[in-house]
Each structure stands twice: as structure tokens, then as C-alpha cells.
């Protein structure tokens, strides 16, 4: 790696809720202020701002980076909005990394905001516009349908049952009970609750799916020499990777996320990780649907193909297991304000690795964690590895 060492030195977030009274810029302001306060920095110490937000169609604002900029502390600063759909949250942190590692900036404020509730009656309508306008959109597709196809492909290929997968939703919603920002935490949820919930598009049921949410998350990133001045517990970026597969999702094997594997291999190579199953102590894979957590664990090479469900069933993926997976509660439990949800996973690793995760703290002083997000037409993987 040619560039400089980069660390995360501060993090903050708003509550994740179904419908926030605050505007998008106000949510961005709250997260950004909390992140700055957490490391006792002020805006004039920030060189550049990176903004993340998913489709503009949610709140109907064109050039959304401009709209969010005053709230995110970007006034007068170099400001940029990188974008990879649902993968944006983790990608925003990667973008903060390359801003600093390149030598261009010493400090970057990364802010991800999402306000899905502006979209009436439901943000699902905005997702119609992600499909190919010639080949797919005339069919009136719904995002849930393609996830149903993917979930079915995954279950069929490996002979998994609905119960195997529902365990993920149970674990994550229970984990979220320790998260002060959580929208759908439920310490008492059972597998039966998930299996008996309303069918949306078979095999996807209501409790297999993360909610729509409003919220914002921010992290402060700094170059080596600044990070050591700001805090005695910097959390270092050890590896990053991102990969975008073909748009023609109908031509892909939906049972395996090759794009996640490509992204993970890049990140492992950069971090010098040869045996990820031994060297990664906490995993925060993207879990907008319960099967996606399993799917992604396999793409990340942290489980054999078709075997990720066993990690959950045997308790290995529990917070106190050998490989804690989604100790935050994830998108299923904390909520899914799309771009903010990805950065929430990065912030969770920051708190966990510093031993500041409170009731969610993974025991045993974990030293290295991985966060991953996914998006677009089931085609992008973004991976970041943090260590202390």
C-alpha cells in the first residue's frame, strides 16, 4: 500500500426511525456534530467532507450533495458524494480513506444521511427506477421480487430451510436490543414470529426484511500524525475493496455474490490477511434481508458455500461466539436508512474495537473487524477492514 496510514478517530449517529421530523440536512448535522464532539474536534479542523446518500428519488431532491452540504459542515470545503447504491455507506468510509491516503487531505468528515420517509406512500416505489428502462421496467418489477428470486436460488442450491435463515433475523433483532439508536430491536423475538409473519413475496416474509428508515451516521477520519494527536485509541483502516458486477443480473448465478468475494480479496490483500476466518474478530456484513447476511459471509470467504447458516445455528455467530456476526443488530434490528446503515456498521466496529460498545460489547478485546455493504442490482460489494 503506497499511501499513508488512515484512522477513524470519531463517530456519531442519530436514532434510526421510521419517520424523522428533522429534514435531511438536520439529520446530517446531528450525526456530524456528534462525531466531531466524540473526538473533541471542530469543523475548522476538517479539511474535506465526503457525503453519502442513496437514490435521490427518495426525497425528490436533485443534486442532493448540495442540499445536505450545509448540515454536513461542508460550507466552503472540498465536498464530494461518492455513490454505489446500497453499498454507499461502507464506500463513503473507503472514500474518506483514499482522500487521506492519497496525501491530498489530513482530516475528512464522512457523513451518510438517508430520509426514506419522504417517499409516499412507500419508498419501494422509487426502486422501480433502478431497473433497466427497456428490458425490465415495463414489467413493473418490485425490489422484493428480485430478492425473493435470489433467496430462493440460495435456499434451493444448498437445501436450506426458511427456519435456517430466520435464525439470522432473530439474532440480529435481539442484538439490537443493546443499541440506543435501534428502530426494530426485539429481545423476545422467536423463530416462529419470523416464520409466521406476513408473506411479502415468497420466500420473503415481513420479518426477513429490514425496515425503511430515516437517519444519519458520521465518522471523522485522520492521517496518522493527526490521529495520534486526537486520540490514544485510533482505529486504523487496514484494508479496503470494492467491486461492481454486470448490470445483467439475470445472467448471473444469484446463489453466490462474486462481487463481494472480489471486494473482500482486495481488502484482505491490502490488510495482509491470509486466513480471514482466524484473523477477523468481528464481522458486520450487510443484512437488509436475513439470507443476505449468510450470502455475504460466504462471499467474504468467512464460511464455506452453503454453510454460513451453521455458524448462526451453532451460536458461533452470536455476540459471545467464536466469530461474532452483526453484534450491532444490523439493518434488521437497528434499521436501514440505506447509506447511513452501511456507515453504522463502520461506526459499530469503531466502538467495538475501542471497547466502547456498552451492552453490545463483544467480549475478548477484539482487535480486527470487517464491515461490508452491498447494493445496486444485487451487483456491488464494498468492504473495509479496521484494526486497533
Amino acid at each position, binding site marked *: 500500500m503506497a499511501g499513508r496510514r488512515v484512522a477513524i478517530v470519531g463517530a456519531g449517529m442519530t436514532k434510526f426511525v421510521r419517520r424523522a421530523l428533522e429534514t435531511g440536512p438536520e439529520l446530517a448535522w446531528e450525526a456530524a456534530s456528534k462525531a466531531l464532539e466524540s473526538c473533541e474536534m471542530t469543523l475548522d479542523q476538517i479539511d474535506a467532507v465526503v457525503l453519502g446518500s442513496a437514490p435521490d428519488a427518495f426525497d425528490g431532491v436533485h443534486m442532493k450533495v448540495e442540499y445536505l452540504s450545509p448540515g454536513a459542515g461542508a460550507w466552503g470545503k472540498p465536498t464530494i458524494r461518492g455513490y454505489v447504491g446500497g453499498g454507499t455507506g461502507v464506500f463513503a468510509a473507503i472514500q474518506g480513506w483514499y482522500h487521506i491516503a492519497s496525501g491530498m487531505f489530513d482530516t475528512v468528515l464522512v457523513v451518510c444521511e438517508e430520509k426514506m420517509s419522504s417517499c409516499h406512500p412507500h419508498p419501494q416505489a422509487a426502486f422501480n427506477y433502478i431497473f433497466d428502462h427497456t428490458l425490465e421496467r415495463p414489467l413493473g418489477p418490485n425490489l422484493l421480487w428480485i430478492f425473493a428470486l435470489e433467496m430462493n436460488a440460495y435456499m434451493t442450491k444448498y437445501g436450506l430451510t426458511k427456519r435456517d435463515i430466520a435464525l439470522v433475523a432473530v439474532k440480529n433483532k435481539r442484538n439490537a436490543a443493546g443499541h440506543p439508536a435501534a428502530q426494530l430491536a426485539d429481545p423476545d423475538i422467536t423463530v416462529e414470529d419470523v416464520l409466521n409473519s406476513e408473506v411479502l413475496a415468497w420466500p420473503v416474509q415481513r420479518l426477513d426484511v429490514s425496515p425503511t428508515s430515516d437517519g444519519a451516521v458520521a465518522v471523522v477520519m485522520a492521517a496518522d500524525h493527526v490521529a495520534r494527536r486526537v486520540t490514544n485509541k485510533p482505529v486504523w483502516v487496514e484494508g479496503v*475493496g470494492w467491486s461492481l458486477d454486470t448490470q445483467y443480473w439475470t445472467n448471473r448465478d444469484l446463489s453466490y455474490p462474486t462481487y463481494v468475494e472480489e471486494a473482500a480479496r482486495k481488502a484482505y490483500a491490502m490488510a495482509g490477511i491470509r486466513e480471514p476466518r482466524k484473523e477477523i474478530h468481528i464481522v458486520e456484513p450487510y443484512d437488509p434481508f436475513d439470507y443476505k447476511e449468510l450470502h455475504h459471509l460466504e462471499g467474504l470467504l468467512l464460511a464455506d458455500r452453503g454453510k454460513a447458516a451453521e455458524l448462526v445455528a451453532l451460536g458461533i455467530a452470536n455476540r459471545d461466539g467464536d466469530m461474532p456476526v452483526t453484534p450491532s443488530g444490523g439493518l434488521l434490528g437497528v434499521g436501514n436508512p440505506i447509506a447511513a446503515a452501511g456507515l453504522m456498521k463502520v461506526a459499530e466496529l469503531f466502538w467495538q474495537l475501542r471497547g466502547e460498545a456498552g451492552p453490545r460489547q463483544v467480549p475478548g478485546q477484539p482487535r480486527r473487524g470487517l464491515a461490508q455493504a452491498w447494493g445496486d442490482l444485487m451487483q456491488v460489494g464494498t468492504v473495509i477492514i479496521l484494526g486497533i
Partner: protein
Amino acid sequence: MRRLHTEVAIVGAGWSGFRSISPDLSFREMMFEAATKAYTDAGIDPRRDLDGLVTAEEDFHEGIAISDEYVPDPMGAVLRSVHTIAGDGLQALAAGVMQIAAGAARIVAVESHSKASNVLNLDQITALAMDPVFQRPLEVHPVFIAGLECRRYLEVTRTPIECVAQVVVKNRRNALRNPRAAFPADLSLEDVLDSEPLAEPLTRAMAAAPADGCVVFVLARGDVARRLTDRAVWIRGLGWATDSYTLESRDWEGAAYLRRAAERAYEQAGIRNPRRAFDLVEVDDTFAYKELQHLEALGLCRPGEAGWWTAEGATEIGGELPVNPSGGCLGEGHLLDASGLARLLEAVLQLRGEAGPRQVPNARTALVASWRGLPTTTGAVAVLSREP
């Protein structure tokens, strides 16, 4: 002072268009054409050599939510590190440069396109970038902002409107020597001043008309660039900045965004006296007064001088400092999010001595400056040189 850790050069350029309409090509076909030219120009095979791709696009201009889904396939970048910048093309260039300097890539392509002729309601789309709470209810077209700002500029700098009209005459005449230009014309001052009023004091002819086109560049790390070509154009400095989003609190006089962006780019490039540093300038002229305002913000002349410079012919191709020899946005057409890359394309061709009948003799250094257009206050600057 913060500098890039690695030298980065532009080693290939390609384009499709530019034309006022392009019914025979989809945006994917335009991307394919421009990418093929750029890869051939750089002498690379994307499937073997390309590490990443950065595109610049806005969902509402594309009519697609999560528009980055559609970029890997026509660009030969499937399963590569691809992402989009929801911003101007020069910001995408910056993202590509930072990735190389950070050590994440050796060769990166940068792409942006416009299919403005597909957008039936471009004015209404632009209006969606206005503040949804305070300004959108007024139901005014954002072009009034350009009228207000132009009036302010003329008052403060005591520039006659004829100097603004002269920018149009010059740029559209330059476009007569540019086969890419969509709107070449031989106009008189009266033609410009007497065209229909747009937003007082601007007339229709003082605003760039939208056009279709695509621009692709191939960037490479210094050592790779030297192996690939002896026509590399080196990126010596980069800057971008966002000023105030709200109309009420922005700097109406001096294009503060470009002043800040230029300060950073000059610092990186080690330029102390910009007035003598460049052989040519390609600067945003979406509205004719913007060329004058931007020349002053870039420190190329004092406030109030740009108009007289233009009137005296100093900014003609044979003048003291040629400005927009390509014809600028007024002559080539406005390429929406790709407009910054269109300016960059001319600068690259000029520095390679490949600008044909509009070649500036012995051009060795160039300055490129972009503006994201109404109603934004975001701009970017790139300093280019034939020498590393």
C-alpha cells in the same frame, strides 16, 4: 503543504459526440464508443489492465435511480473497482487520481456523459435542486439566479453587457474550428444582445444549450504512464469546493467556490502567479458572464478586468491568454455532469498538440475549471502540464 503521494497522468482520451441530439445512440453506445477510443488511445486492454472506473452522473439527469448500475458493462469494467460520483466530471477525475495516489489502483478510467436530448423537462429537473422547503414553493425557474448574479457582477465590476456578449461571439466562433462542437456560429454582438431575453440582463444566446456526448479518460500512475506513452498529460494540481447552498447566504460576487478550489490546486502545483502560469484556459461558461467571473476568481486577472480583456481580444486563440479555444460550453454545448470533462478534453488535446486548426502554439501548461451549474455553488479546478 499537502501533495499527492504519486505522480498521476492522463494517458488516454476518447469521446462520443457532441451533438444537440443523438437519436441513433443510446447512452450505453456513447459510453462504448468513447471508452473504446480512450482505451485504444492509451494502448490498454480494459479486461487486462483496468483497475477501476469512476463515473460522474446524477440520477435525475439519467432518469434512473442508482444510475451507477449501468456503467460497468459498456465500459469493459465488470467486476472492477467501479463507483460513481454524484457531481461534476472533474470531481470524478479527482476521485480517480486519489485512488491511484493512495495505492489502490494503477490504471483508472474516468467517464461522464450527457444524454440531455432524452430529458423532456430539463428545466423542471434543475428546479428540483432548489431547497425543497424554502425555495421550491416559489415555483421559479433557477435561471433567475444566473440573471441576478450576472446583474450583480456587472454592477460590482463595472463591466458592460457588451463584454459578456463578446464572450459568446468568441466562443461560438472558436467552435467553428472544432469538429466536436454542437453549436458553432459566426455571430455579431447585436445577434447576441438582441436574442430573446432569458433572465434579465441575460439573453438566450448568453446561455449554453444542452448537448449529448460522452468523454472518457484513462489515468495512470507515473511509472505506468511513462511505459504506456510519450504523450502523457500530467495532473499537477487539483481542487474542488462547495460554497453555500442557500441563496440567502452565498457569495454573489466572486464565485467563491472556484477561488477556493483554485487556491488548493495552485498550492499543489506550486503556482504563485497564476497570471503567467498557463498557455491556455478552459473554463466553465455555462452562462457567458461566468467565463468572466471565473477568470477573475481563478486569479488570472483582477476583478473587473476580464470583460475588457475579452473585448480587446486577449482571450482569443491568438491572444495573450487563450480562453476556451474549444468554444466552451457555449460552442460545444453543455454536457450536464460531463461538462467539466469536456473542458478537460480540450486542454489534453491542446497539450498533446492535437487540437488541429485551433491549436495554441507550444501549449505546455493548461488550467481547467468547472462549475456544476444552476443552482449550485460547487466548482473544481485542474492544473495540467506536458511535463511531470
